[in-house]
């Protein structure tokens, strides 16, 4: 830091600066302005647009035509939309539930002395490093009928599973990847939470003769509650937004079994050019995401005055 440069007085400026609260306020507004402009133009404006387009019929060629609630009513009766909502719900529930205990357990495991700890942690963390598209490509290959996963299953005496080819298994294959990707991510967050717990608590528990298990239930878990809440909310939001993996691996098939809501929105808008219905679905997704985001923001700002 150039304290020498700062110490050098700048006479005519100095007078100008002292007691210029107004100028400071102006500066504060000015440096906030680019952020506000970008967010207003590319986040809020589109959201408002989405609400408007949701009430129109618009195919990008003909000008939009107001149709009232028709799009929403169509959606409620549309089996494809119902399917997408159901698939998304299934994906969210089953890709999220295992991640909580798994990531917490891994974090707790890494919070003790281990052989080759750093190497192990890097290895466990690797799924987060892999780009989503690469992940989709590699796992598609691994899920191949003659691929490595079926070979592993063969060692355990299990018959090959037609992972992505069957509407019964495709969604579970996609869910498995979601778990693979998310677990180390939230492990890191849990580890950060664990590090915030004072070591004295564990020392006291040890002196008291408490077992590791009871220390976990009585110290770790209660003190990790805010972290756990946040992880729960974050996992759900991320799971609701899943797009790249089902898009690349299955395109929504077979038999619509992996057509999650974001994928259905994309296909309605950019493959069938039905902006109205796509926007109406976006509104549904928005409401779902919002419920959890509000919880997340409340956790973030819980310490504010």
């Amino acid at each position, binding site marked *: 830091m150039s304290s020498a*440069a700062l110490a050098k007085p700048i006479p005519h400026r100095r007078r100008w600066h002292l007691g210029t609260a107004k100028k400071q306020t102006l500066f504060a507004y000015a440096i906030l302005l680019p952020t506000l402009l970008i967010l207003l133009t590319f986040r*809020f404006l589109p959201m408002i647009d989405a609400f408007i387009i949701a009430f129109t019929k618009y195919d990008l060629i003909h000008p939009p035509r107001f149709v009232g609630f028709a799009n929403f009513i169509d959606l409620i009766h549309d089996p494809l939309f119902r399917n997408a909502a159901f698939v998304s719900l299934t994906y969210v529930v089953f890709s999220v539930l295992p991640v909580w205990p798994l990531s917490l357990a891994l974090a707790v495991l890494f919070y003790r002395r281990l052989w080759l700890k750093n190497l192990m942690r890097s290895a466990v963390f690797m799924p987060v490093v892999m780009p989503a598209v690469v992940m989709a*490509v*590699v796992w598609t290959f*691994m899920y191949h009928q003659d691929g490595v996963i079926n070979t592993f299953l063969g060692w355990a005496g299990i018959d090959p599973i037609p992972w992505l080819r069957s509407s019964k298994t495709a969604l579970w294959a996609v869910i498995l990847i979601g778990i693979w990707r998310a677990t180390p991510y939230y492990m*890191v967050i849990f580890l950060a939470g664990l590090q915030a717990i004072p070591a004295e608590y564990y020392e006291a528990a040890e002196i008291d003769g408490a077992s590791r298990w009871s220390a976990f239930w009585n110290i770790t878990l209660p003190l990790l509650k805010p972290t756990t809440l946040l992880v729960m909310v974050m996992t759900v939001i991320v799971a609701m937004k899943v797009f790249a993996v089902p898009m690349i691996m299955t395109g929504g098939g077979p038999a619509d079994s992996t057509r999650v809501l974001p994928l259905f929105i994309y296909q309605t*808008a950019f493959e069938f050019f039905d902006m109205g219905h796509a926007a109406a679905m976006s509104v549904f997704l928005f409401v779902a995401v919002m419920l959890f985001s509000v919880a997340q923001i409340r956790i973030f700002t819980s310490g504010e005055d």
Partner: protein
Amino acid sequence: MRDPTPSSNRTTQPATQARTATDRGALVMAAEACPGGLGEGPRSRVMSGAACPSVMAGAACPSVMAGAGRPSTASPRASSNGVDAQPSPATTQQPTLQLTRPPRRKPSPSIFRRVLSFRGAIIAQLLVLLAALIGVVPYLWMLSSSLRTMDNMFALPIQWIPHPLNWRSYVIAWHAQDFTRYFINSGVVAVAITFGNLLLCSLAGYSLAKFRYFGRGVLFLLILSTMMLPLEVTMVPLFLIIKRLDWANSYQGLIVPFLVDGFGVFLMRQYMLGIPKDLIDSARIDGASELQIFWQIVLPLCKPALVALGVFTFREAWDMYIWPLIIVSKDSLRTLPLAISLFMSSYGTAWDQLMAIAVLGTLPMILLFFFLQRAFIQGIAVTGLKE
């Protein structure tokens, strides 16, 4: 009552020593050997100040016991009867000779505990090893498949180290399409988004953290609330806006909407709240301009947060798939994720080439991870930041 904490190998012999000591009427020893005295700190204090051992034996033991949190039938007896302060050492079996033992920081675990924790350590190690394997196997499989010839692609038993090595898959795949171009595109977009975020998020964060003005709270919440407007929700109207701006198929269309992010602003603000106001005020008195203060004082102090945010943003930008998919139709503007997905749909069965491209597309992330591992993990950890 058996105490789990004291070391097992010290249990038996000192116990007998203590007993003989009591027989000899050595009250100091009795006080010493009082089962409550097993804790580290309090007892040594008792020792040094043991002017009247019998009193000490009565008074000190229960308090130490209480400190250790162990209920004991022994201590009341010890307090009521100072002379017979060594209460039935045969049942407690805990007494130790403190005079000869150096003070310890931690009580060492009993044999039962140690065996348990040894077994626990092995189980933990195995579980972690399993998790590590699960994390790494797809990488190994990707790498080894990229080097296998198509004839051996599904050969059994699995060829982890392919024979013969097939380096040509990399060359063929790279030249099958203009991957140099896609790499550059992805690099340009990710770097621009990263630096845009570093600058704008820290500017906005500074404004929200260190200035007081009308509407600050509302603006902060407004910015934070963009976190509930993910691209998956706004993609349709955002595409229409970009089209109206005539930014489809352009770098600015890929970059500008993501130049700032609500969470990034939040992160920088939280970090800057910790910067002392005095530092900024004294710089003002020294005549520094507001921009100078930000650039030369505040920003250097935020380096850890900036590195974490930068790595996190770069990773997200490099990963971005849905947006290029929507607004890029021109071949020359494809980013790497888009190109890989299109490559897969047109060369779907050329697994060696696909895996080669997958390896190359992952490489920048792996390099980033290994060179900036701490920042990479920190960048994830801060997404779980809370107050």
